[in-house]
């Protein structure tokens, strides 16, 4: 069952590989495979009303800007977007005159919950640094759903986000895509049917953590060439594992013993698990793209990617997204060549650009980060319409997470993940006033009762930035 769901998700989103019919598995029970889906999502949309948002400037997230537009939400879904709409009988109407309406922002690079606030050692669970290859860990097992950062992100219009393991390891483990809805459990936040992802990392971090960081002599990898050997070695093992598993599925011998690390890597080779790779330098990204060709998988997105502007043509040709900051640079050697025009230059080359945060602070205003990049592009003659630039915030990250068939734009049939802004969200002064997730109002700036407060902050002097 799980295999089928994952295949559908992959087909619907990125069509990375053709999925085999699962029927052949039934002939011989494969011991190598789990009996049931592990840690299934228990998220259910909260109650919502039929809501007609009207007189707004609508950025539909798919490239359109509609003046005096309306958005109709029914049963938690977008059912209509346009100018000539009428409120159905009984619908609540929100007159959004002077306001802007957009799809919810999706951050595909967050460590909320895994590196929560307060940032104390007892709760720093984002890096399993015990070995350079820890593809067996799943970050969802580290996510503390009470992280106050989720509520601040919600106030910034974040409706979905990917939590990733850190970048200490060559293979850091599985990421998880969440709905930004407070829950007692991480399962209660898991985005239903979102494909799994795998975090990998290039460059300085793995070689520092396992090599010279451990003193002399350190372990492997000690160098960038050690990094590459580490990736290839793991993919060779995964290829063998997959071969044996596939043979068993087709009745040709014993299945391999279950192995969490190789299950994840084989999932990548199957095209079911999407690779998100921390990589700053252009030359390293080029090498990673070659490794993926050698082993027959695809890198869905390079993260941080501060040098994507140097190889935007190659990234466009390969088809990887770049998940970028607007202007962070200079804090380490591999971030030295960062420039504020990175995002518009990548977009301009026809490659997929995403604005990400990697920060519990930055995630609160990704719209402003996009605005900076948009304006910096404009100053050098790359004049991208704002409605096109909004794709950096919703549709492109949704695509990178394999959920763009469900959310990421205001189109009929999609989840009603919607933000009502006080003004043009590319202005510093704009604020997210109302945030809807699956049509349910999860944040209302003007109504204190409609602003979540996590357990940790309850009874504290600030109580969730509400006092």
């Amino acid at each position, binding site marked *: 069952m799980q295999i089928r769901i994952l295949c559908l998700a992959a087909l619907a989103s990125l069509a990375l590989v053709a999925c085999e019919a699962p029927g052949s598995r039934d002939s011989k029970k494969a011991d190598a495979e789990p009996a049931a889906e592990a840690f299934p999502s228990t998220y259910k949309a909260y109650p919502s009303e039929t809501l007609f948002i009207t007189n707004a400037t609508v950025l539909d997230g798919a490239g359109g800007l509609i003046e005096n537009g309306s958005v109709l939400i029914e049963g938690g879904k977008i059912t209509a977007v346009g100018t000539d709409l009428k409120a159905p009988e009984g619908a609540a109407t929100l007159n959004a005159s002077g306001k802007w309406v957009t799809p919810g922002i999706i951050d595909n690079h967050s460590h909320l919950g895994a590196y929560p*606030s*307060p*940032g*104390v050692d007892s709760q720093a669970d984002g890096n399993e640094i015990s070995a350079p290859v820890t593809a067996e860990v799943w970050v969802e097992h580290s996510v503390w759903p009470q992280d*106050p*950062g989720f509520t*601040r992100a919600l106030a910034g219009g974040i409706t979905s986000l990917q939590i990733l393991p850190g970048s200490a390891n060559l293979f850091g483990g599985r990421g998880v895509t969440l709905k930004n809805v407070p829950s007692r459990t991480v399962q209660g936040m898991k985005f239903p049917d979102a494909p799994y992802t795998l975090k990998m990392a290039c460059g*300085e971090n793995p070689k520092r953590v396992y090599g010279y960081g451990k003193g002399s002599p350190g372990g492997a990898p000690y160098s960038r060439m050690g990094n590459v050997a580490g990736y290839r070695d793991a993919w060779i093992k995964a290829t063998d594992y997959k071969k044996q598993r596939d043979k068993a599925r087709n009745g040709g011998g014993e299945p391999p013993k279950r192995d969490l690390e190789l299950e994840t890597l084989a999932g990548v080779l199957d095209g079911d698990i999407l690779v998100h790779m921390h990589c700053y330098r252009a030359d390293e990204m080029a090498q990673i793209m070659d490794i993926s060709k050698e082993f027959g998988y695809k890198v869905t997105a390079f993260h941080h990617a501060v040098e994507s*502007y*140097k*190889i*935007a*043509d190659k990234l466009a040709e390969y088809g990887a997204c770049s998940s970028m900051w607007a*202007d*962070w*640079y*200079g*804090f*380490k*050697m591999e*971030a*030295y*060549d*960062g*420039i*504020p*025009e990175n995002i518009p*230059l990548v977009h301009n*080359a026809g490659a997929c650009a995403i604005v990400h945060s990697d920060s*519990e*602070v930055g995630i*609160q*205003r990704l719209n*402003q980060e996009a*605005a*900076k990049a*948009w*304006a*910096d592009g404009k*100053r*050098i003659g790359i004049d991208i319409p704002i409605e096109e630039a909004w794709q950096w915030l919703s549709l492109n990250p949704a695509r990178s997470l394999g959920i763009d068939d469900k959310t990421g734009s205001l189109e009929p049939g999609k989840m009603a993940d919607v933000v009502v802004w006080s003004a043009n969200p*590319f*202005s*510093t*002064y*704009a*604020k997210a006033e109302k945030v809807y997730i699956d049509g349910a109002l999860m944040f209302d700036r003007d109504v204190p009762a409609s602003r979540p407060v996590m357990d*940790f*902050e309850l009874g*504290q*002097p*600030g109580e969730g*930035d509400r*006092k």
Partner: protein
Amino acid sequence: MIRRLLLSLAALAASHTAAAEPVAIYGDTVWTGTSQGTITNGVVVINNGRIVSVGPAGAGVPAGATEVRAKWVTPGLISAFSRTGLAEVSGVDDANDTGAPKSEFSAALNAADGFNPDDTAIAVSRVGGFTRLAVAPSARTKLFGGQGFLADTTGEEDSAFRPRAFAYIVLGETGASLSGGSRPAAWATLRGAFDDVRMFGARYMSHNEGNVLTRMDAQALMPAVKGEQLIVFQASRASDLNAIMDFKEQNPSLKIAIVGADEGWRVADRLAALDIPVIVDAFSNLPATFSQLAATSENAKRLSEAGVTVAIVNLDNDSHLARLATQIAGNAVANGMSFDAAMESLTTAPAEIFGMTGLGVLAPGARADVVAWDGDPLEVASAPSAVFIDGETQSMVTRQTKLRDRYRTLDESQKPFAYRH
């Protein structure tokens, strides 16, 4: 006849306006930072490194003045707290002089000794509209980080214009950790150090016998202890801020400012009464540590409304992105701070805190640090189109703009990119 200066980056980069030649900087909006307030359709005339006049367009513009036009004109911005010029690459130890984890000295560490006017982050700050920086060391071995300094962003040899402008002392959680593990240890250390300084003669004349400080550290801390030099304390929790204010009341001659102050709004009235300015990062709204449980996006607003002098800075990547304080100040406005107070937090407030006379304002006689903007300076989509420091037109070229221009188009069929420069 008025000569027109094309406001293209190239023209500005190429021309180096002579100081002894008047320049008229016109703005649709001119924010002065003085009782002149905000002038619609205004002009600022500069000459010989000074501001000559500020008024409505047309007023007081001498014949032959070079003309610059912009949407907004403001005083040169001042970063009240940064590490710019001390770290070319923060994560590379050899290229980072912000702190000294293995030094036996602390208060005596003079950050200006590590300042590199060629540091490429200085130009990045300059093209972001910042003309002056207060630069602080990092405290790595004791709660005394050392001596901070003031610099302009010209990148010229003499640009660190006031060394030893302030003593930097870290309290709160970090101070506790640097003092052996608790706040009581931090305060014992601080009081012991002050005693060392006050009894310098008795303790150090023949031996190096301070309770806390080496002879050199005690000597360096002396002006601060005497109230002749500003002390910038770092602290966040309300109880820490109250402890600093208790200390100030016990030592009324001390000149104090506080950086961090995430819970400052809870003690704002007392800060105002004691006239203690604060330097805040208005993005801080999370309980990131147990010292910031009451952090709120409204901290700057509430402090300002209580009458506290507030400077706004970027405490994240403070070596390279001091310039993001404009975005942070804009967000403070979105969270209720008045626009004027937010602008003051980048101009007059830091000038006042560090005693930078004639800076942070557009006023006749003031030093001609002026920035021309293509929009509201607190809007994320805005940027400076021209920057003047002491009347000199500044280059808008940075290492970042050179990288950008090199890779603006990606055709290398004729020659490798390395030949584009």
